[in-house]
């Protein structure tokens, strides 16, 4: 019964606070009085105020080691990943912050080719890759074949009828390192710089960033701006295919580059003693190779839907992104409600909306749990298609990559932390993630509903970590 009363009180107080702050934007004096009312200690639940997560953050003169491991698995034998990460942060007495973070990704599984399913088995071909004395198929389950005329060897993989064509046996490793440094320049001003790089067998990325943050109004307002520049090199295992060329076992072209300039500007405002609001705008401009060299699209008979040939996909070499983000943290007693929303639009015609909500719930003196939900929606890129009908001439750009399709996604999550002592914290998270088709479902010519074109995923993530402070 006590719990129910507390909950009702919290909901009422939340509504009062939100209403009060909406009124405060109009300058109504009574609204200010309501805000003051939320500072009344009696309005808060005092029973759990001793919780360690209510302590103020004090990092001056500390070294923090934070290590975690993420396990990620998609249903249907698709991608699995194991991602250990470790960071080292030294926060000096002078408020300088030095940080290093190492991340390693190990991925295995199967990834959609982009080809449409069909009523009969389909065979896909790719070049063989020879590394040292070992012939790699790039994936398991393939058969090495030799062309009788040219002598060229290639790998063929066959996909069953009525199944989404997946490139099975996919595997990749990624190692990434990030260096960061933050220092106070003058009263209320902080400069942050950073460098990061990552290496995969078929992709390298290098980036540098600079940002400035300035406090105003007794540190209740922080304005920040930042710039990040990234240079990526794509070097596919069997070379870069010519966009819209036929899938084949012949080795492809040289590696390709991409450069990304990103800007971010934001304001963080302490609205009331219990409420922090953050508002960001980010801009990104990517130029260069942005096609996925492993993705193809089926060219099909425009009457029956039967596959005629498979073409490598083609994407524009320019992409401009805009995103606006609003985040809110509202404390009521020892509980904290976290809400955020993001609107995104890019020059490929994709618009998306993301909303997240989670609740920090203290447990006893040393622990918390945080259930959360995330909703995501995106529209399709203007060059997205499940297939190319044979009666259409080739467009300049076309892709069947499911990440450019229109879909909704829901994440349900539960995370939590437990402080063994003031210097040791254990934490964990479990996420369930599901994508579902948004809008009208696609159908191949021939209207066979058993041929599912949407390639969305259903995944689970489990993560656990430990934070040590010295």
């Amino acid at each position: 019964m006590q719990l129910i009363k507390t909950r009702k009180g919290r909901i009422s107080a939340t509504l009062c606070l939100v209403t009060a702050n909406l009124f405060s934007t109009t300058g109504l004096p009574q609204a200010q009085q309501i805000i003051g009312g939320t500072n009344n200690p009696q309005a808060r639940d005092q029973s759990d105020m001793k919780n360690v997560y209510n302590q103020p953050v004090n990092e001056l003169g500390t070294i923090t080691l934070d290590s975690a491991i993420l396990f990620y698995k998609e249903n249907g034998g698709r991608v699995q990943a194991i991602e250990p990460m470790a960071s080292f942060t030294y926060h000096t007495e002078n408020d300088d912050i030095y940080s290093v973070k190492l991340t390693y990704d190990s991925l295995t599984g199967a990834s959609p080719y982009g080809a449409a399913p069909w009523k009969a088995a389909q065979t896909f071909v790719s070049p063989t890759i020879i590394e040292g004395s070992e012939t790699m198929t790039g994936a398991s389950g393939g058969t090495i074949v030799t062309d009788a005329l040219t002598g060229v060897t290639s790998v063929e993989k066959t996909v069953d009828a009525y199944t989404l064509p997946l490139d099975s046996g996919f595997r990749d490793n990624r190692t990434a390192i990030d260096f960061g440094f933050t220092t106070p320049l003058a009263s209320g001003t902080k400069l942050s710089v950073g460098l990061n790089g990552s290496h995969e067998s078929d992709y390298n990325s290098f980036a540098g960033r600079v940002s400035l943050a300035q406090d105003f109004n007794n540190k209740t307002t922080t304005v920040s701006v930042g710039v990040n520049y990234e240079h990526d090199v794509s070097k596919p295992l069997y070379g870069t295919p010519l966009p819209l060329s036929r899938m084949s076992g012949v080795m492809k072209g040289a590696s390709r580059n991409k450069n990304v300039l990103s800007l971010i500007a934001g304001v963080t405002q302490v609205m009331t003693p219990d409420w922090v609001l953050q508002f960001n705008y980010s801009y990104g401009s990517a130029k260069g190779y942005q096609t996925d060299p492993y993705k193809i699209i089926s060219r099909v008979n425009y009457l029956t839907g039967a596959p005629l040939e498979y073409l490598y996909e083609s994407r524009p070499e320019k992409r401009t992104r805009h995103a606006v983000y609003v985040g809110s943290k509202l404390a009521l007693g020892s509980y904290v409600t976290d809400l955020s929303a993001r609107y995104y639009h890019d020059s490929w015609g994709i618009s998306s909306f993301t909303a997240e909500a989670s609740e920090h719930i203290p447990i006893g003196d040393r622990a918390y749990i945080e259930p959360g939900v995330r909703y995501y929606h995106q529209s399709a890129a203007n060059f997205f298609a499940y297939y190319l009908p044979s009666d259409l001439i080739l467009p300049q750009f076309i892709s069947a990559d499911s990440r450019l399709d229109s879909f909704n996604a829901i994440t349900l999550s539960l995370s939590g932390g437990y402080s063994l002592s003031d210097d040791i914290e254990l934490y964990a998270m479990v996420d369930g993630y599901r994508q579902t088709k948004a809008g009208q479902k696609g159908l191949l010519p021939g209207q066979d509903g058993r041929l599912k074109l949407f390639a969305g995923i259903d995944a689970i993530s489990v993560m656990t970590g430990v934070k040590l402070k010295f």
Partner: protein
Amino acid sequence: MKRIIIIFSLLGLTVLLSSCAAVKPWQRDITARKSMQLNKNPNLTAANDHVYFSKEAAAGGRSFDGGGCGCN
């Protein structure tokens, strides 16, 4: 698109600027708590952002929109 960004910007700035100055330095004990930090657990945030970046088309907003990997 531009109109939406302008509306968001004006709304955000109006809310932020019109509600300032009410909080005094000695009233900042709650916002200084561990549980009130905007990025309370950087590893959890980074792991989630990495998964979403590799499975969805949208990026950015909370941070820079670069990905630093060939996953998308």
